[in-house]
């Protein structure tokens, strides 16, 4: 390998990372949180309580839906699962050539309606990580560029580290910058497959947006038409124009479902198409666990005879590959252990990006006699982009508990709190000396994380008590995660303060006071 090539790779790795590092960090933090979207939503919608799930809920739900309207075009029952405690019934009614969806959220034990607070819940992090709250202003393009830069960073990173395999089994712990550099190298290695799959699949998911030209050239309706041509689904249901009573005892069908899916027959939701028509059809959706693909596994039955209908035809290989990458990106199939492992890799990726940004600045400041505005800007953006973002995330949870429930557009307000705190931390980082800003924000993060479960308990102790009573691990786990996060922030705060004090003493002894400011 020519030395020039390596130098070019280092340059590309350094500046591509710097240019988009903060954006990547925000995308990876929110994306990592998205592995627990239903769990976060569960905590953010405490009115739902702890739900129990059983197939027995289906028959009662069907009876209830039948009473709602005899003109329904379609029914849908979303069952509570281990991860999501949403138990909802939906029915669609055609009015003036428009189909209107009606939804009701229920308590699975009493079947009483629950009024849930207006919040985006964990879904906010999921949508933020690819739209950046700029859906109408090219947010998805920015996210796409970030994914592309991440891929560049991954490949150039391999060339940047000469002793790639020799170095990755040790971290030098005595000097702060050596620790950070080693940590950057080690997490770079361990997250290599993860970051590649995540970045590549991110580009594949929105391939129609990033590379629309081929589809637009070959099809009148562009990607939409291509999509409809390569996606296989159930045939369109044609009405028999003969009214019948809908099926409200699903036991025989559920028995068939268990027979068809003997290994894992848990259901997430079911759709009853044209319940009052002779040709009515019941579609059962299996809980994702067995396949990496994001294509739902379904079974369709004739509502009248209970007969199992023909399965959906398999899709083309290219389509299936895209679906597998889509599935790998979302990890809908991941069971708790795997989900935590993926979360861990997401956190490691955040450490990779964050440490890269810190190393860039430190290496330059060490060589400089006088810094210019660019260095200060990078320094402050590091503080706001890393510590500020974490504070914004925790503020979003505070907003969820503190904004009055009956306030109009409270979901939007929660998001605004997140954005405002993030921006405020950026301003704050300019008002304080860099190291102090790091320490203060870290301390604030730690305290904020630790106080949140207490606030939750103070507002309504019943939520946590019920979660313990029903062994609702999502709710309890979220509170535990808050405590652990707070502990980590405070530990890091004390460690950094201790290191800082040592540095101060050392520098004072050698009369290099200027370096303290760095």
């Amino acid at each position, binding site marked *: 390998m020519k030395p020039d090539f390596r130098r070019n790779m280092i340059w590309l790795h350094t500046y591509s990372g710097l240019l988009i590092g903060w954006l990547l960090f925000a995308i990876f933090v929110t994306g990592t949180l998205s592995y627990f979207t239903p769990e976060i939503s569960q905590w953010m919608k405490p009115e739902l309580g702890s739900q129990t799930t059983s197939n027995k809920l289906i028959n009662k739900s069907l009876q209830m839906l039948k009473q709602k309207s005899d003109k329904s075009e379609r029914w849908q029952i979303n069952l509570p699962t281990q991860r999501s405690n949403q138990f909802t019934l939906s029915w669609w009614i055609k009015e003036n050539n428009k189909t209107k969806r009606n939804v009701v959220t229920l308590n699975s034990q009493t079947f009483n309606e629950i009024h849930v607070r207006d919040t985006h819940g964990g879904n906010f992090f999921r949508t933020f990580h690819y739209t950046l709250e700029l859906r109408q202003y090219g947010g998805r393009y920015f996210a796409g560029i970030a994914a592309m830069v991440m891929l560049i960073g991954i490949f150039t990173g391999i060339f940047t580290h000469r002793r790639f395999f*020799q170095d990755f089994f*040790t971290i*030098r*712990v005595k000097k702060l910058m050596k620790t950070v550099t080693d940590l950057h190298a080690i997490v770079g290695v361990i997250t290599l497959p993860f970051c590649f799959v995540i970045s590549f699949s991110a580009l594949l998911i929105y391939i129609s947006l990033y590379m629309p030209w081929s589809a637009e050239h070959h099809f009148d309706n562009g990607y939409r038409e291509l999509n409809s041509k390569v996606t296989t689904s159930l045939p369109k249901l044609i009405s028999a124009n003969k009214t019948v009573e809908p099926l409200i005892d699903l036991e025989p069908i559920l028995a068939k479902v268990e027979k068809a899916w003997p290994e894992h027959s848990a259901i997430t939701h079911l759709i009853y198409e044209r319940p009052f028509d002779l040709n009515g059809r019941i579609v059962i959706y299996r809980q994702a666990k067995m396949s990496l693909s994001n294509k739902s596994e379904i079974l369709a039955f004739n509502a009248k005879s209970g007969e199992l209908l023909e399965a959906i035809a398999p899709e083309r290989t290219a389509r299936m590959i895209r679906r597998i990458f889509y599935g790998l990106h979302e990890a809908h*199939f991941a069971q708790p252990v795997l989900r935590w*492992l993926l979360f861990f890799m997401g956190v490691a990726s955040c450490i990779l990006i964050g440490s890269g940004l810190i190393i860039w600045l430190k290496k330059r400041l060490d060589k400089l006699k006088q810094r210019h505005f660019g260095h200060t800007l990078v320094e402050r953006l590091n503080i706001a982009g890393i510590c500020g973002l974490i504070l914004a995330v925790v503020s979003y949870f505070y907003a969820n508990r503190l904004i009055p429930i009956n306030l109009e557009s409270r979901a939007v307000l929660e998001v605004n709190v997140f954005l405002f705190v993030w921006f405020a931390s950026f301003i704050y980082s300019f008002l304080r000396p860099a190291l102090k800003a790091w320490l203060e924000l870290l301390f604030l993060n730690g305290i904020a994380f630790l106080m949140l479960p207490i606030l939750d308990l103070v507002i309504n102790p019943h939520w946590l008590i019920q979660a313990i009573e029903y062994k609702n691990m999502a709710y309890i786990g979220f509170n535990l995660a808050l405590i652990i996060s707070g502990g980590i922030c405070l530990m890091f705060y004390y460690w950094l303060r201790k290191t800082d004090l040592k540095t101060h003493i050392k520098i004072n002894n050698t009369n290099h006071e200027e370096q303290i400011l760095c």
Partner: protein
Amino acid sequence: MLISFIIQFSALWFLSQAQKKHFKLVFNIPFTTYIEKKFKGLGWILLLLSYGVALIFENIPMASVYWLSFLSLNILSVTIFNSFYAYKFKKV
């Protein structure tokens, strides 16, 4: 799956010790080519075995995802183990 995880951890530990840099942090005996070959061989065999064990519990795609995720965690675990050992005995 836990068995696969433990085997993989052992495999990575042997592979890490097949390098002089890490070996001398842990052992007080001289590092020889014989030791390197033995450790490397054992490491690779155990690594393959851990994948084989993962395949017993899950289908190929799912087992591969688990195995790769374990790999990341185990590399970090071995790193922390080596670093802690080196730090404890003040060799770094």
